[in-house]
């Protein structure tokens, strides 16, 4: 194959080389730190460091199309390590790092399961994890090489230009794998081609009119497909800079991102729905001194159901510091179609032909008849739904019933997507792929309806819980709770309950106990809180203990979500606070 010239990029690495060749001194990435001044990395520095990681991985013998796991903390080596694998034609995948030594036992167990299934050729990580990792891998067959980023000096040798792909089409090779969250037993790695990733960037960029003059800012971590694609790869493709805060910095001091937007005149800021609420509530009045958000032309929502009230809270709080509500935007998608393939809003810029529609519908008809019956805005019993928009170029969607037949407008059904961004499949998991992909359509299990060509998302077909943009599989929680000897096996329900105050879901767990002893019940409650947090890094809002055979199950043995929530008051301990109302758009 004749390699195309560098000015016609077909792969992510082509883009990286092009940026480094055209504008080596332009800013690529800025890493904000809580305790020192930021690290800045130019495109030239990005390429140089990438070639160093590529050379180190080549030295370890990493071949094309083998997986390289990257487990790094907030550091300018994150992307060079990742692109270094890609440079060789290997397949990088970011994984979260352990968030404190208290969780580490669980973390290693999950990581080991992932290593055994994925069979990575190498793991790039940091010194603090080295000893544990070595112990973990010592009896793993085909154990991966471990590279510590601190041990790669600034003077390390550079890899030569990338070898051409042996296939006829380099853009179709697997570029990267994106893992969903949840325990590794249930994790599925979406394998994405260069073509799919670049098509996603093109679709988003065209829709919102993004250029190299944009400046992206986020705290969404790079191991999340949204952070990786929309805040790191997309700016690389555009030649625009991005500024990254660590999630822990933002979550503890949400005003930090406002300071960054102000200081660097950022234009694009993506964050999940709960963050609109969180910022509106948690930023203190005195922290707004000097803040100016007038540079933002897109403040985009995604990764979880987007709520009308969340946007309104944000606008009410921040319009006085220059936030323009026309900057509000929405994207919809999932790792299986790279990330974002449908969207609306961002009306303050050069692109955006589609405002965010608000469709007020009858809440009761939605829950009971699965119909989106329109009501006048502000009606009693009305639920304002935010439209997530239209498909970007190369993406269409339809709504289908359980037999995957298309349903009429305003009927709730499963959302199916056809897109040029569609993944290759789940890595080493053909069965899971076949369940989700049929005739080129991806069936992701989200529920929604269409009206006037606009997609509205109402909830999930499965009981997947989404907390702050992270997917949590209820089965994971139910399994770990059952490990308690006094919990009845198979009689546990983990349910995500919408909370409009938080703008996301809260987790509640109901467990049937073998014992009537209140001391045992208290012990189970503490056990559930400990295990769920340790394993999934998410907090249980409420834990309820039920007598045996209390939980309703459907005839197929599934936990019936709404009926159980509706009678939850039977279980409430006298001193407990009530849980959130089981209402809201996902109440299906």
């Amino acid at each position, binding site marked *: 194959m004749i390699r195309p010239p560098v000015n016609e990029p077909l792969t992510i690495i082509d883009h990286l080389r092009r940026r480094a060749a055209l504008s080596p001194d332009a800013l690529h990435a800025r890493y904000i730190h809580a305790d020192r001044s930021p690290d800045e990395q130019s495109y030239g520095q990005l390429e140089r460091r990438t070639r160093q990681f590529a050379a180190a991985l080549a030295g370890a013998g990493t071949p094309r199309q083998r997986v390289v796991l990257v487990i790094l903390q907030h550091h300018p080596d994150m992307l060079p390590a990742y692109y270094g694998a890609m440079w060789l034609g290997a397949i990088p995948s970011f994984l979260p790092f352990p968030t404190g030594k208290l969780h580490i036992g669980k973390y290693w167990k999950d990581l080991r399961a992932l290593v055994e299934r994925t069979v990575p050729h190498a793991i790039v990580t940091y010194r603090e994890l080295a000893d544990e990792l070595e112990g973990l891998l010592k009896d793993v067959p085909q154990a991966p090489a471990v590279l510590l980023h601190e041990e790669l000096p600034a003077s390390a040798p550079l890899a030569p230009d990338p070898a051409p792909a042996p296939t006829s089409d380099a853009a179709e090779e697997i570029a990267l794998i994106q893992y969903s969250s949840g325990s590794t037993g249930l994790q599925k790695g979406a394998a994405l081609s260069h073509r799919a990733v670049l098509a996603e960037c093109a679709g988003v960029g065209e829709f919102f009119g993004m250029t190299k003059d944009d400046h992206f800012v986020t705290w969404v971590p790079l191991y999340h497909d949204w952070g990786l694609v929309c805040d790191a790869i997309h700016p690389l493709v555009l030649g625009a800079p991005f500024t990254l805060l660590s999630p*822990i910095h933002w*979550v503890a001091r949400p005003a930090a991102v406002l300071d960054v937007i102000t200081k660097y005149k950022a234009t694009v800021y993506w964050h999940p729905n709960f963050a609109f609420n969180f910022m509106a509530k948690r930023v203190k009045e005195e922290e707004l001194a000097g803040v100016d958000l007038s540079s933002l032309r897109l403040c985009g929502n995604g990764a979880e159901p987007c709520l009308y009230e969340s946007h309104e809270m944000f606008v009410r709080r921040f319009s006085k510091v220059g936030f323009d509500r026309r900057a509000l935007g929405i994207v919809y998608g999932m790792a299986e179609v790279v990330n974002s393939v449908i969207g609306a809003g961002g009306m303050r810029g050069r692109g955006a032909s589609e405002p965010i529609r608000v469709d007020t519908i009858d809440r009761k008809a939605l829950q009971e008849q699965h119909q989106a019956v329109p009501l006048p805005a502000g009606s009693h019993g009305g639920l304002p739904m935010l439209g997530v928009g239209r498909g970007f170029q190369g993406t269409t969607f339809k709504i289908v019933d359980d037999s995957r037949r298309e349903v009429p407008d305003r009927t709730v059904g499963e959302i199916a997507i056809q897109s040029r961004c569609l993944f290759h499949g789940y890595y080493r998991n053909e069965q899971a792929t076949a369940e989700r992909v049929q005739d080129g359509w991806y069936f992701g299990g989200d529920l929604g309806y269409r009206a006037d060509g606009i997609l509205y998302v109402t909830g999930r077909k499965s009981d997947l819980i989404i907390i*702050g943009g992270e997917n949590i599989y209820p089965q994971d929680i139910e399994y770990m709770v059952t490990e308690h000897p006094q919990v009845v096996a198979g009689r546990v329900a983990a349910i995500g309950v919408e909370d409009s105050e938080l703008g996301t879901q809260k987790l509640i767990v109901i467990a049937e106990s073998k014992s009537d002893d209140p001391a045992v019940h208290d012990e189970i409650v503490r056990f559930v809180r400990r295990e769920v*947090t340790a394993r999934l890094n998410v*907090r249980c809002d*409420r834990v309820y203990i039920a007598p045996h055979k209390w939980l309703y199950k459907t005839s197929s043995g599934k936990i019936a979500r709404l009926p159980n929530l509706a009678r939850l008051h039977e279980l409430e*301990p006298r001193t*407990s606070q009530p849980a959130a109302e089981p209402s809201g758009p996902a109440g299906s």
Partner: protein
Amino acid sequence: MSAAPVDREPLRAHFTALIGGRRELLPTDDASLVDEGILDSFGLAELVTLVEQAYGVKVPDKDLSLATFDSIDKIAAYVAARR
């Protein structure tokens, strides 16, 4: 620095509310709140606000980690050292 002991009651009340108001389920002051599933990163901002308002100390960004605030004892020690 004040020699007066740090009143832990606002902290206990805060964490009790987070576990459904059941004081008897609140672990001892030396227990890890992260380990017990009571404090997670989303709870940090609220806790920092409480610490700043209830005790009048300023928490700089470099101290913003779960490790700093992982037990009622640790929070009290932090407050004592900062004021």
